């Protein structure tokens, strides 16, 4: 809310907090108050000074208005500002005509917000100052056009004198949702008065004791959602005038002045937090309104001109909206949210019926949410309006209008105030501080709390009606802490009786990232929410989890694979002209919950993508092998690599691995589960994101981390290496295109079990005579030098393993 200093000072003399004679009085005062507001949880988001620094702003009469050639947003204005000759100003506002009086900030003026006015030239036309809006002068929030002045004002007169500008300060406050009491001037002033120990009182209200009062007709309120309804009938208010400070303060608080009856209503809301609603009595069949629940589908046109269907059940659940009805039971307003078009106050309104009501916070919240309709009133009712403030609000309304109501009718359903016990020992042990209890209890009294000692060390508080946030002991603890001052609670060292540590998976995440970065990969963070069809484009037909209320369609489907995000990132880089892109990412993927489960299958994956415009990208299989080596895992035990064609592209997509080249990719299987996939990306997938720019090739590896790298390797005993010389021989095999080099390598390796053996593919030959793979085998025994005869046997064993049925053929 926007809190106006002069308004706050109606309740307590905050002006006295700084030395009125001193230089920079208002700055000191503003800072003092802002510190107090912040310390009490009324967060100051901005401070604006009003009615100050206007020394060089004068009244100017618009004499001529000329268009400027080649400019349709600005015009050349000739004004009389008392200089004896006309002055030329360039102006972008259009809300005035010749003869109007407007404010002119002369060259040299520094307007609020450190906005210096200099001699400017626009479209070749010199401007000797600026014509100003209310906001530019910090006299209000209106910036739709120039501030139009009374035509009685004298051209050339200082503005401050001509319109009796009052210096004031506006605090832009963020009030927490649980403090509706502080969302009005009364509440802010009370909080500050307690803080500074200043006497606090509500300025005199109209005395309504002589007004004819009656109980409201039983049956007027036909819903549990309304527990107070106060109706006041005012005779002729068409001549009523509100005091000068009302439109001025409303302007500073961010509301436009409309008419006395409406201004008074708004003023009361900003002062006491009580929304009221004035009806044009002439538009009502009788000086009477009631409240009831709207029938299912009942329609109403609200003030904003929209026709709305009410109490429409949503998702099968019943919905209840409350309407204000006239004496014919016709809906004329949406209770607590917005009035109806039919009974709106207008220029011709003479008599007014004022509705001051208290509605159920929850019902207003539901209605407001259901209809997507929020207003100042609904926002206040949602948070909780003080049920006891209705009568003072009516009295203030009458006082502002200077008109007493002709009759008042009221309905009230009272409820007992909340009572909360506070154990003083608990209070101090939760805060970890010893507190000046007596002083703080006194502060709570000033806030409207009353109390008595229930037993030794236990106080029982009766909670004031404006404090829905205080319902349990912990709430009172906060209230005490607030009054004591959070800053005064001494910091204490936390002595943790445990040893901090990371889990294996957490350490691995870091290690994988560091390893990948060292290998030249940049860590990426790509979107979790994808566009519909995005994963389907890479062959994924599985059902997906979707967002029911997306912001945008392209962010509405949960990813089942990291591929789409990685490809998006690749595409963006390719479009920027990169020819070499190495990215990795660690992130979660999501699949529809298994039958019977509520939660989706949420899996952490890591992915690596390497693209080269020309030349070969980082080799995915090499990366996989290196990762396994680095982290002590064994690809040849518990894991199996198969061509993706073998498990079928549909099944691979089902497992959430997408976008791979069907004839040049492998699936890593752990047990019966797909634990990863690798190989080259599908050329079409590259084209999909890179278009013309995707001329190269991309290698890709994606792993289910829990099934692979997060597996804690078993502790191995240290082995001693053979001191005997190693023997080396090469083997070339003719193989078909389906044979996996890794399989052949594994078979040869297994045949040499018991020896210290290394089998490395040193050449792949693809030619007219077919495909051949050449391995270099290095062997040593741990306890002897291998002799020629023994080596021959070893070699035969290796060959036999390779040429097993369906295997390779030894080449010459």
């Amino acid at each position: 809310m926007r809190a106006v200093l002069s308004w706050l000072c109606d309740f307590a003399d905050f002006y006295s907090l700084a030395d009125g004679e001193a230089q920079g009085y208002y700055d000191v005062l503003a800072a003092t108050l802002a510190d107090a507001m912040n310390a009490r949880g009324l967060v100051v988001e901005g401070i604006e000074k009003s009615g100050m620094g206007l020394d060089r702003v004068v009244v100017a009469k618009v004499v001529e208005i000329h268009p400027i050639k080649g400019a349709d947003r600005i015009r050349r204005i000739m004004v009389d500002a008392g200089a004896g000759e006309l002055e030329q100003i360039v102006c972008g506002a259009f809300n005035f005509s010749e003869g109007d009086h407007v404010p002119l900030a002369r060259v040299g003026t520094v307007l609020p917000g450190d906005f210096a006015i200099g001699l400017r030239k626009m479209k070749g036309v010199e401007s000797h100052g600026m014509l100003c809006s209310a906001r530019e002068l910090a006299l209000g929030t209106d910036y739709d056009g120039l501030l139009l002045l009374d035509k009685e004002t004298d051209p050339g007169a200082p503005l401050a004198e001509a319109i009796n500008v009052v210096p004031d300060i506006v605090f832009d406050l963020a009030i927490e949702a649980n403090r509706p009491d502080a969302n009005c001037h009364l509440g802010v002033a009370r909080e500050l008065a307690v803080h500074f120990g200043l006497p606090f009182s509500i300025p005199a209200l109209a005395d309504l004791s002589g007004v004819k009062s009656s109980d409201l007709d039983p049956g007027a309120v036909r819903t549990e959602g309304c527990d107070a309804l106060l109706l006041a009938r005012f005779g002729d208010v068409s001549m009523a005038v509100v005091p000068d400070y009302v439109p001025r303060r409303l302007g500073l608080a961010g509301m436009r002045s409309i008419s006395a009856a409406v201004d008074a209503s708004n003023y009361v809301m900003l002062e006491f937090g009580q929304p009221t609603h004035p009806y044009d009595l002439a538009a009502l069949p009788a000086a009477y309104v009631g409240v009831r629940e709207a029938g299912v589908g009942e329609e109403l046109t609200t003030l904003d001109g929209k026709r709305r269907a009410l109490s429409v059940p949503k998702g099968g659940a019943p919905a209840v909206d409350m309407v204000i009805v006239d004496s014919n039971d016709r809906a004329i307003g949406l209770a607590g949210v917005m009035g109806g078009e039919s009974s709106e106050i207008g220029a011709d309104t003479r008599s007014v019926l004022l509705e001051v009501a208290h509605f159920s916070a929850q019902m207003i919240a539901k209605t407001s949410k259901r209809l997507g309709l929020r207003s100042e009133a609904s926002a206040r009712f949602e948070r909780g309006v003080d049920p006891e403030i209705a009568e003072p609000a009516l009295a203030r309304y009458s006082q502002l209008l200077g008109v007493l109501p002709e009759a008042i009718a009221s309905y009230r359903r009272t409820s007992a105030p909340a009572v909360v016990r506070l154990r003083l020992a608990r209070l101090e042990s939760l805060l970890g501080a010893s507190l000046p209890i007596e002083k703080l209890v006194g502060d709570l009294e000033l806030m409207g709390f009353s109390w008595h000692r229930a037993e030794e060390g236990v106080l029982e508080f009766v909670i004031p009606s404006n404090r829905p946030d205080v319902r349990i002991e912990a709430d009172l603890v906060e209230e005490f802490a607030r009054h004591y001052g959070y800053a005064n609670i001494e910091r204490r060292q936390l002595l943790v009786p445990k040893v901090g540590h990371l889990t294996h998976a957490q350490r691995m995440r870091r290690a994988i990232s560091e390893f990948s970065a060292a290998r030249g990969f940049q860590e990426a963070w790509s979107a979790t929410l994808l566009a519909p069809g995005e994963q389907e484009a890479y062959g994924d037909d599985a059902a997906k989890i979707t967002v029911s209320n997306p912001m945008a369609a392209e962010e509405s489907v949960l990813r089942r694979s990291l591929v789409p995000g990685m490809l998006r990132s690749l595409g963006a880089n390719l479009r920027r002209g990169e020819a070499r892109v190495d990215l990795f990412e660690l992130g979660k993927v999501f699949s529809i919950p298994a039958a019977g489960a509520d939660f989706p299958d949420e899996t952490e994956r890591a992915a690596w993508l390497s693209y080269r415009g020309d030349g070969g990208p980082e080799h995915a299989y090499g990366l996989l092998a290196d990762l396994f080596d680095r982290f002590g895992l064994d690809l040849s035990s518990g894991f199996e690599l198969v061509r993706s064609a073998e498990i079928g592209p549909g099944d691979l997509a089902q497992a959430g691995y997408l976008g791979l080249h069907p004839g040049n990719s492998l699936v890593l299987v752990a047990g019966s589960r797909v634990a990863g996939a690798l190989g080259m990306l599908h050329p079409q997938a590259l084209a999909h994101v890179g278009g013309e720019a995707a001329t190269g090739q991309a290698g890709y590896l994606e792993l289910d981390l829990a099934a692979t790298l997060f597996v804690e390797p078993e502790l191995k005993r240290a082995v001693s290496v053979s001191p005997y010389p190693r023997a080396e021989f090469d083997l070339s095999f003719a193989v078909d295109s389906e044979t996996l080099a890794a399989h052949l390598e594994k078979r040869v390796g297994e045949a040499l079990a018991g020896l210290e053996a290394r089998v490395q593919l040193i050449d792949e030959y693809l030619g007219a005579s077919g495909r051949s793979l050449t391995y270099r085998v290095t062997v040593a025994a741990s306890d002897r030098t291998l002799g020629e005869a023994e080596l021959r046997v070893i070699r035969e064993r290796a060959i036999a393993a390779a040429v097993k049925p369906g295997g390779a053929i030894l080449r010459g």
Partner: protein
Amino acid sequence: MDLEELSSTLSSIEGEYRGRSAAVASLHDLETLRSEFVSKKGKVALVYRQLGAMPAEMRPKAGELINALRERIEADIAAAAPALEEAARQERLAATAGDPSALVAGARRGAGRLHLVTRTRIQLEDIFVGMGFTVEEGPEVESEWYNFEALNIPKYHPARDGQDSFYLNLGEEDSMVLRTHTSPVQVRVMQNRELPIYAIMPGRVFRRDTADARHTVGFHQIEGLVVDKGITFGHLAGTIENFTREYFGPDITSRLRPAYFPFTEPSAEFEITCTICKGSGCRTCSHTGWIELGGCGMVHPNVFEAVGVDSEEYSGFAFGFGIDRLAQMRWEIPDMRVLTENDIRYLSSV
């Protein structure tokens, strides 16, 4: 062959050697020379073999003459070697000299970097682990019970507004969400771990917000939770202060001011000295000298009740703040969207 003949043979060999030796230009030449003249099959050895054909009384003298020649040649070769070896070394160096900075682009693998958010997260984790905390995790898809209900955010509470949460088409309507904060992990930790608890919970969260310079749809928070006997608001303030000084340095301090969160009571917002102006007031801090960092407070009794912790015996505090926001502050990132664009020029520049 008599001695005379022998002498003349030897001097002709020596002559030849001298002639050849003058032309030696490399270690290789020298080796050739050695092999030709003084190896087992060399010219001198050949002469030696003929010794058998000589009368026995001449042999000692002949042997002496031959050996003397061999020794002379060997000594000569040995003397010539160092200079030639040095020359060879120089030649090898000269042949392999080059400009180490002449690195062709493709030949360099390059080093990648960790994402700024990851780097920030690691730094935060390390600080709290150093204090004795563990790191806990939870799912990104949450039930409304964990994300709201258990955290004292009942239905129709403004904090639950569909404006902020992505609901999923899973199970009953509005029953599952992309978690809007890391706080549900608190609930899970209290349910699943033995007391006492000293844990932080970093992770990705989602808000239904249009991405702009200050927001991304997904972002990262870190949450802290302490539950033990005798935990006070003073401990919360002390922990926040320790963290602030450790992370931001000794110039930066923290302060707490009243705030509202449904899952803590008392609740506080924590602010730190503006890192730009160090508290003197600037545009970043709206001339207040302070910037808001996160929320915190004492765990609300209703939250304890939801997870079955006896709030009479135990008390606790929780805090949370944005990881991305800290990254933004540290690296002065003008537009948060760069964090998700994965532009390798950007990723590798910071």
